[in-house]
């Protein structure tokens, strides 16, 4: 993958606290994922657990470009999106534990996090199923003439699904403000892209709908932020949807059950060199945007936050069985 130059310009134009906030979010996601893997091992988390480790810069950079009126829908690998858009780490961990204090009261679990204060309408577990939903959200924004966009995050594998194409075509015909953000981590579960996609760059598929597209280094949080800002601008100016392909890599297995028989250790080791967290940390220090101490402080604060989150999740209670029939239908 052609690695773009780190967006150094942004490094100089952004305020320090904003840069540190981006660092903090990536750090928060990283530690959250590490600890949830541990909690899974303890049996406190069940079902699937899809870790976002290695891809933090994509969510943090892209979501940072969203405003309070914008909308977000994503696929199931969604812990990072929830944390980046401001969901409380305790509520997210509680959801993974299946507790009443979770973001969906323990009903949805890891794959269906949500944060309605920021119109994060959730993670979805049917691959590509949420992409037409994003087009519909964009339609609602256009219909109600709102100055906002809907962002939709999905993986490379979902671009082979019909739902993706039906959604992009409609979005382009209607010129609705939707940012389609593809996380190309080269694999769909245990299958490398070349066995299932006719083209190497998923953004090529946006051409079929005349949707402007760009490929971005998904390991560079500032590059992601810049691209997302361009996308938001484009969408808000009424020019219709925009497509971003973020080249990234999943450092851990697809889910906790993954035997990882489909890629070799060397490849994974090599890619770990592109650790978005370390890259950004070094960048900040190198360009004197932060002191070692400040970053260590953030690391520590994050550690504590996650510790509290786990404690909160532990102490929260499971849903009351008597409420099991609630929420099947509305009022």
């Amino acid at each position, binding site marked *: 993958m052609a690695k773009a130059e780190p967006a150094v310009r942004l490094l100089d134009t952004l305020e320090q606290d904003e840069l540190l906030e981006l660092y903090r979010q990536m750090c928060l996601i990283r530690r959250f994922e590490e600890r949830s893997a541990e909690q899974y091992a303890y049996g406190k988390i069940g079902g699937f657990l899809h870790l976002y480790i290695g891809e933090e810069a994509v969510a943090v950079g892209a979501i940072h470009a969203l405003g309070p009126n914008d909308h977000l829908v994503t696929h199931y690998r969604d812990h990072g999106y929830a944390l980046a858009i401001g969901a409380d780490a305790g509520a997210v961990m509680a959801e993974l534990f299946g507790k009443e204090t979770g973001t969906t009261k323990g009903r949805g679990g890891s794959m269906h996090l949500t944060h309605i204060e920021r119109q994060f309408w959730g993670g979805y577990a049917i691959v590509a199923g949420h992409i037409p939903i994003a087009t519909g959200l964009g339609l609602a924004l256009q219909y*109600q003439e709102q100055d906002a966009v809907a962002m939709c995050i999905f993986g490379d594998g979902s671009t082979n699904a019909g739902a993706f194409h039906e959604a992009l075509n409609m979005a382009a015909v209607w010129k609705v403000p939707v940012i389609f953000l593809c996380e190309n981590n080269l694999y769909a579960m245990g299958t490398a892209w070349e066995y299932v996609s006719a083209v190497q760059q998923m953004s090529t598929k946006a051409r079929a709908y005349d949707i402007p597209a760009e490929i971005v280094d998904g390991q560079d949080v500032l590059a992601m932020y810049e691209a997302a800002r361009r996308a938001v601008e484009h969408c808000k100016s009424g020019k219709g949807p925009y497509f971003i392909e973020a080249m990234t890599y999943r450092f851990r297995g697809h889910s906790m059950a993954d035997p990882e028989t489909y890629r070799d250790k060397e490849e994974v080791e090599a890619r770990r060199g592109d650790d978005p967290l370390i890259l950004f940390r070094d960048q900040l220090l190198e360009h004197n945007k932060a002191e070692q101490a400040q970053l260590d402080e953030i690391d520590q604060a994050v550690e504590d936050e996650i510790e509290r989150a786990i404690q909160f999740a532990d102490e929260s209670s499971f849903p009351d069985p008597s409420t099991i029939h609630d929420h099947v239908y509305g009022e």
Partner: protein
Amino acid sequence: MASTLEDLKEAQREAEEAAARGQTSGDREITYRDALREAIVEEMERDENVFLIGEDIGAYGGSYVVTRGFQEQYGRKRVIDAPIAELGIVGAAVGAAMGGLRPVVELMTINFSLLAIDQIVNHAAKIHYMFGGQFSAPVVIRTASGWGQLGATHSQTFEGWFAHVPGLRVVMPSTPKDAKGFLKSAIRGSDPVLFIEHSLIYRNRGVIPEGDYTLPLEGAEVRRDGTDVTIASWSRGAILSMGAAEELAEQGINCEVIDMRVLRPLDIATVAESVKKTNRLVVVEESWRTMGLGAEIAAAVQEEAFDFLDAPIGRVGSLEVPMPYARNLERLIIPGKDEVIAAVKQTLA
């Protein structure tokens, strides 16, 4: 063919004038199609956020001409001609509903709902529960069951499948009154609703109440009181059953006919009540008999009224064959009045 929007307005004007003259206009008779048109127009007038989306609903007027004239009237913003992408259409409607709009989708026929079934079952029906009741996707999906030498892939009716799904409401009205009242409730409601019409009853006429009325999305209705045998059906089947009941009456067999109207939630109590009086039940449907909705009604009623049943619950449904094109074969597949009469007599044998 459907009346134009003008005819519709005309009819409404007439009715209003009649009402003004103090003359009861409760007997205003309109077609099933016009009942749907009135419901849509009234709700679009009432709520800016109600919009229509579907294949060929604009310039073409809808394959069963329900939306003719609406695009001229309301523009492309509120009457969207969609691509042939059922999954995408329903998905977009789900998203639009989450975004605050009130989408009314038209899926040309229920056969094509198979392509959208993931969005209906795994998205629309689950979103409210899955996200802890914090938001929902109140999308209304209008579609049509029916047949008429359309071949194997275009002559099916899957209402029983959808009646299986928690989170979804399923209605299949047989009268203009129910069609209008249910559709208006569905559009105003907070749940996803599958609204199933029938291509062979759009021209049926019926009396509807004046003005703005809605009907709750629940409850079967006794269409005909009887003492000997209960017949439960819905949509075109209910009409067929009424005809059979008339003929049976001449033969001295007095049937009670129940129109289920709403298929989820299913009103078993009303059927069970009736069976406690008649002690016999026949369920009539157009689906293949095995795993048709009749199975659920029979299974549930024997639970509710076991001691009152004097004969096995009879089920009338289609032959278990993909629909053939040939006219003479098609006639044998779909149950007619004779099959209903035979089934009723069997419960009395």
